[in-house]
């Protein structure tokens, strides 16, 4: 009997609890299953926007990834960035998103906890979900922060995080990320080159005067470096035109930094395609920031060798100032292309020095004569072309002369005796013998890709118009790790 009553009681309890949990699910929309955190607003219509206390923590490490000391350092760093940029920076980690989508959960966290500065709640939040089944990093920008949080910058920030997170270097990840965010918010670009950062932060150039080979890639031995530096110096002094070589694996669109923040030298037309324009502007900025060039017009020639992660090269030659580069008064398009071609020829890791020296050989000839000589390969092709045309000319004209010479020949035709209008076709028949089919492959027009580059090989998904439960919009970037 007791057992019967106990079973009945349990059944009633179960029946009583079921509608309650179903009601909780309904109220949170697509929030999934599980118990929601205290801060979560289950009825968005009842929520009113508010600003939380500026002293509230900006690092909420629910996943417990950092030590208390590390937390303190990151907290301080986030405060520093906020004060410098007047935009809120929040890092939030957790081991679950309560069955919700990470992006929505992160945005709701930002909104319902009153983060963001100013009337538009400007700021950026990074959410790390450590749930093994749903591990992801998601960043969302709100308010005016969205202006700089574009696909390129968000991808760079994700790159910084990814490299550390996969190594479980959480402190380094957040610290590096905060510096990238600061650069982005201050200068519009996450990963500023060193020379650019030094100039922007202190107004000082990084490289001392006379250092004309800047190698951020490596791959050139000390002795080769010395030899190249000597050659650069000799050429510069001899022709009173500063000759500089810059090898870099950085490759950014510095236009985000703003036209007033960085000086940009005038080095002639920047090119036609966006990649060339971007690279040339980068070099022009480098030239002006570092203060290269002789005399008032900063006369000089800069070779830029851009190396990307796939060891693909972009070679650009820029001439600045005018007038006294030996006989090379002006860098014509063809001369520029030729210099770039001789530099690019067989360029690869391990032979940078060889290619730079070859470039300097051709540049020396150019400054001496005003013309960029062609490579031996090209000269060989020309000689072959000359010989080929010569052979054709010789053979055809000789055969023609022989034909013209030999006028005594027995006639084998009676063309001149044909009465032209006498020709008649009296009967005709066409018999189809067979059909053959010729195939011709027509390649499709190449499809351009707008994917952003990623050093880790992983790609971020960027959305410029995400929405939280309350309806506030942001720009989100997310990547699994």
């Amino acid at each position, binding site marked *: 009997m007791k057992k019967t009553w106990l079973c009945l009681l349990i059944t009633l309890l179960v029946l009583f609890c079921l509608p309650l949990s179903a009601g909780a699910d309904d109220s949170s929309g697509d929030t999934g299953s599980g118990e929601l955190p205290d801060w979560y607003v289950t009825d968005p219509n009842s929520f009113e926007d508010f600003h939380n206390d500026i002293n509230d923590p900006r690092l909420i490490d629910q996943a417990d990834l950092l030590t208390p000391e590390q937390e303190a350092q990151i907290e301080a760093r986030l405060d520093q960035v906020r004060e410098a940029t007047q935009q809120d920076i929040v890092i939030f980690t957790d081991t679950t998103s309560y069955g919700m989508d990470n992006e929505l959960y992160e945005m709701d966290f930002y909104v319902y906890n009153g983060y963001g500065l100013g009337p538009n709640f400007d700021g950026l939040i990074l959410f790390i979900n450590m749930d093994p089944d749903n591990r992801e990093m998601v960043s969302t920008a709100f308010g005016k922060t969205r202006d700089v949080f574009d696909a390129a910058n968000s991808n760079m920030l994700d790159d910084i995080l990814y490299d550390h997170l996969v190594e479980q270097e959480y402190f380094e990840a957040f610290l590096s990320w905060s510096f990238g965010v600061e650069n982005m918010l201050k200068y519009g670009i996450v990963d500023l080159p060193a020379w650019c950062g030094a100039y922007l932060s202190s107004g000082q150039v990084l490289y001392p005067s006379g250092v004309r080979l800047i190698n951020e890639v490596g791959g050139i031995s000390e002795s080769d470096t010395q030899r190249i530096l000597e050659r650069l110096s000799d050429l510069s002094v001899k022709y009173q035109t500063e000759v500089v070589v810059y090898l870099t694996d950085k490759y950014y669109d510095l236009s985000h930094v703003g036209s007033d923040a960085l000086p940009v030298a005038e080095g002639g037309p920047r090119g036609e395609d966006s990649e060339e324009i971007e690279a040339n502007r980068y070099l022009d900025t480098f030239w002006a920031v570092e203060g290269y060039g002789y005399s008032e017009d900063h006369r000089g020639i800069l070779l830029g060798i851009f190396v990307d992660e796939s060891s693909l090269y972009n070679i650009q030659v820029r001439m600045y100032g005018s007038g006294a580069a030996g006989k090379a008064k002006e860098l*014509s398009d*063809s*001369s520029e292309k*030729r210099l770039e071609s001789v530099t690019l020829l067989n360029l690869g890791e391990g032979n940078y020095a060889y290619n730079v020296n070859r470039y300097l050989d051709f540049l020396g000839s150019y400054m001496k004569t005003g*013309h*960029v000589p*062609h490579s031996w390969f090209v000269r060989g092709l*020309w000689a072959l*072309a*000359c*010989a080929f*045309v*010569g*052979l*054709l*000319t*010789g*053979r055809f*004209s*000789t055969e023609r*002369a*022989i034909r*013209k*010479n030999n*006028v*005594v*020949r*027995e*006639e*084998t*035709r*009676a*063309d*001149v*005796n*044909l*009465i032209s209008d*006498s*020709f*008649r*076709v*009296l*009967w*005709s*028949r*066409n*018999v*189809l*013998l*067979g*059909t*053959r*089919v*010729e*195939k*011709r*492959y*027509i*390649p*499709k027009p190449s499809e351009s890709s707008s994917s952003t580059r990623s050093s880790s090989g992983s790609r971020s998904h960027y959305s410029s118009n995400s929405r939280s439960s309350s309806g506030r919009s942001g720009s989100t970037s997310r990547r699994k790790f």
Partner: protein
Amino acid sequence: MIAEQKCPNCGGAIAFDPAIGKMHCPYCESIFDIEQFQTPQPAKPVGMNQRDEAMKAAASPASMPVYVCRSCGAEVVTPSQTTGSLTCPYCSNNIVLTEQFSGALVPDGIIPFRIMPDKLSDEVRSYYKKKMFLPKGFFSRNSIGPVTGVYVPFWIFDCDVTGDIAFSAEKRGATYRRGDTEYTEYERYRLERKVSMSFAGISLDASKKMPNDLMDSVQPYDLSQLQPFDIRYLAGFVADRFDESSQESRQRATERMKNTGANVAMSRATQGFHSVSIISSSLQTVVKRAAYILLPVYLLNLTYEGQPYQFAVNGQSGKVIGKLPYSKLEERKYFWKRFAVGAGIVAAFIGLIAIAG
């Protein structure tokens, strides 16, 4: 039997003067109209077979080409059995052997000489000066021999040609695309055509002594200037009767017509097709007219290093033709000069581009 042309005034040997188209006595400078001299029997229409038979009869050993000059009484052997007109080597009397141009051997027509022989050596010189690949020293070490005016026998044919020709040819058919591949169909046909055409005035020399290539090359002659045969035009010139039968010459003419006929049919009867080639050709010729005529040719020999090079000059138009020595060394020089020009132009072009660049 011989016919001599004597000056009525001085009794000297008189000859036909091409420059004035009249008989001219070189001794007393008298000029006479051609009609004032002995007129031969008018020619009667003769069939080709008859002519061929007559040619064989005239070529028999019984008819030895020996004559007695009426002027000086010398007994002269003619250079060949076909010689019909010559000059006595002893007294320079102009003699026509009338039996060579009698009966079935009478030519159907003659084109008299229009060009004078006196400046032909200069014409030949200017001709070979334009030629290339001559050996070094040719200009200074050659010698031009005497000029001989010869009436060369020719056969003239007018023919109709009919027959069947088969061609292999292709035609482009439908073009369609599947995926990244474009397919084009080509249909191969056998084209069968029955064609007809006509030829007029095919001229072939009828003398075995004359090289065919030289006589073919010295043409064309304006056959509208053809005159009825008259032995008076032969006075002062060498003349040969034919020794190549009409049947032999007709084979050569047929070959020419077939070659031309097949090519004309290929170009005119296969429109809309490409990659056309002849599979078979069966053309028959029907001779509408065959005529035996004499055409004027000046012959002369140019000698270089002991080797004669024969020249012929069209006696009607003055066209000069001839064979010349050939130097391989000069050909190579010419080749390398042209090579240098071609290569130089390309090099200069490239240089200009390089400088402009």
